[in-house]
């Protein structure tokens, strides 16, 4: 373990949004004595990003990864916890330090349709960060960067506008823009929109190569586990605002511990008709982020739910593993009596969807109704 602080560190990072929208709600809350309801979009996330590391954050829609991204680039102020950059907490940043932070943290959207200002030529788009920070540059530097992201010949692209570029080309421009200030960290946000797979492959390979060549770290946010596995060294699985599992990619894929991670992995379609995939057993959808249940947020869909799951699970490292943390009651001893680990028979689902039983990959089976373990 090096003595250097991690490039980016999150300690219990929280971002809560107040859902009351103005006068009437505030007054009503006052009168009825109820607490204002919050959307706990990011609720206690821990992460350490080291130099040259690529970490993925994966989750379904509504898990909070977009909010996390925006908090990381400083668009939102955290409502709790700490964000540290090279060991320094951002809450103590002066505006100069914030500007420096913005220079060192590059953002790459991979949404090809809107990530470039349609009124900006490629040249202006790429040089904008340099202009904002008052950095000197030569046209040759810009051309070099364009060539490095695969837009050759660079002169041809300088004067083009986004409407004259293909989706892949626009992405490359976005990447060039993200790297032009030679940042320490890149934050990449993959969109939900459909991207041609051949373009995707190129861009993923490009990012892989560039992170090596430039020595930047990257946080890669996505809902697609296949692409995340391809490009990331380490994966964080998010669910309704919390990181439920965190491990190196290979470990996560081969030995997923959290039931949600297991379900995710099981749900991925495999491009092979010979492979008989076992289908995931969980049903329903992520719950309403406003009225989240106390305790483990996954309990309403979890096939392994126990009574103790009404309490918030701690982040633990399962026995026999290193460098792998899970937020799940299954993996640590509870000093309470037997009954707390009793299986919960009733499994209320959030959407009126169907109930299913099946076998989980690590061998244990879900208890059918009426029987006890």
């Amino acid at each position: 373990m090096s003595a250097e602080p991690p490039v980016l560190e999150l300690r219990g990072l929280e971002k809560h949004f107040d859902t009351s929208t103005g006068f009437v709600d505030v007054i009503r809350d006052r009168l009825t004595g109820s607490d204002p309801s919050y959307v706990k979009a990011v609720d206690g996330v821990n992460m350490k990003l080291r130099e040259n590391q690529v970490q993925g954050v994966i989750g379904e829609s509504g898990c909070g990864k977009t909010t996390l991204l925006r908090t990381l680039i400083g668009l939102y102020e955290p409502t709790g916890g700490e964000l540290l950059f090279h060991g320094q907490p951002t809450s103590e940043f002066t505006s100069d330090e914030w500007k420096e932070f913005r220079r060192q943290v590059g953002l790459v959207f991979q949404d090809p349709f809107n990530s470039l200002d349609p009124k900006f030529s490629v040249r202006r788009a790429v040089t904008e960060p340099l202009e904002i920070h008052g950095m000197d540059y030569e046209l040759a530097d810009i051309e070099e960067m364009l060539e490095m992201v695969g837009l050759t010949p660079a002169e041809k692209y300088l004067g083009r506008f986004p409407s004259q570029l293909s989706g892949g080309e626009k992405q490359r421009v976005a990447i060039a823009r993200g790297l032009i200030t030679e940042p320490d960290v890149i934050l990449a946000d993959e969109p939900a929109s459909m991207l041609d797979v051949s373009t995707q492959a190129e861009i993923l390979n490009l990012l892989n190569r560039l992170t090596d060549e430039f020595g930047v770290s990257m946080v890669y946010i996505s809902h697609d586990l296949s692409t995340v596995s391809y490009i990331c060294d380490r994966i964080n699985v998010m669910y309704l605002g919390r990181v439920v599992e965190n491990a190196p990619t290979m470990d996560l894929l081969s030995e997923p511990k959290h039931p949600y991670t297991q379900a995710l992995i099981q749900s991925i379609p495999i491009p092979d008709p010979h492979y008989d995939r076992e289908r995931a057993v969980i049903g329903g959808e992520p719950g309403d982020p406003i009225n989240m249940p106390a305790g483990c947020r996954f309990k309403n869909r979890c096939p392994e739910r126990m009574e103790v799951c009404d309490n918030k699970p701690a982040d633990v490292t399962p026995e026999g593993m290193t460098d792998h943390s899970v937020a799940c009651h299954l993996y640590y001893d509870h000093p309470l009596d037997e009954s707390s680990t009793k299986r919960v028979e009733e499994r209320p689902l959030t959407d009126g969807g169907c109930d299913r039983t099946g076998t989980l990959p690590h061998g244990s089976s879900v208890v059918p109704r009426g029987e006890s373990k």
Partner: protein
Amino acid sequence: MSVARRVRNLTESDYAVMVQRTMRNLLRERITKFAFVCLMLILFMGLVGPAIAPYDYSEQQRTDEGELNRYAQPSLEHPLGTNDRGEDVLSRLLVGAQTTLITGMLAGSLMLVLGLFVGVTAGYVGGRTESLLMRFVDFIYGIPFIPFAIVLITFFGAGFYTTIAIIGLVLWRFIARVIRSQVLQIKQRPYIMAAKASGASAPWIIRKHILPNIANMAALFFAMGVGLAILEQAGLSFIGVTDPFTPTWGIMIRNAHQSGRVADAWWWSYPPGIMIALTVLSLYLLGRGYEGSGGEDEVVV
């Protein structure tokens, strides 16, 4: 840098390209081309009108016998005849082009500036500022224009520039609303977030990202504002609350109406009305062309 180099820089700059593209898109349909040509002619008339007018607009023409040459039919000497005071209608029309267009453009500019300022601020800043500003706009919307104008004129007098100010200070309201909603949309776009993430300040973002992206719409609203101003001014002239001595087209219509000879002195009563209609129609047709060309040039697969 030499002038040639500067010019080349300008013509090759992003803005030039954008303007070229917009113009090309705009003028694709035949009817917009027609409207554009019409407008250019009218503008030209406004520019050189007073200079090429054959007579002074308030000069009362006399016949060879020394009589006032009133209600003269169109002839070679007076292609549009004369009015009830013997003034040459064509000259008045040409001078009126300038005054009417000045009214339109000044009032239109005032509308645009106010509308943009309120709209962009409300849209971008959001929060309480936005609420406050939009409530203010609602209030302005509640003002019935003509009665209010009459009241103001009673206080401030019926001057040429007073009319312009009144029109501009009330009718900017529709621009503010639409611009605000446009800005709200643009604010959400990823490239704005990317600019913020790069450390851009709010003025930078507004100047470089928001304004250029609403420029098309702003230009459209300017055109509409000019048209609206010309119409309102004609209306106000008609009811007699504007300066009667400046020969705007509106005043000409009013005078014709007042004289009671609208039907038979057609060479006097029709031309100003036709000119107003043509101007406003061309402006609106250009606006329609903008809509037809697809507005923003954002790519959709």
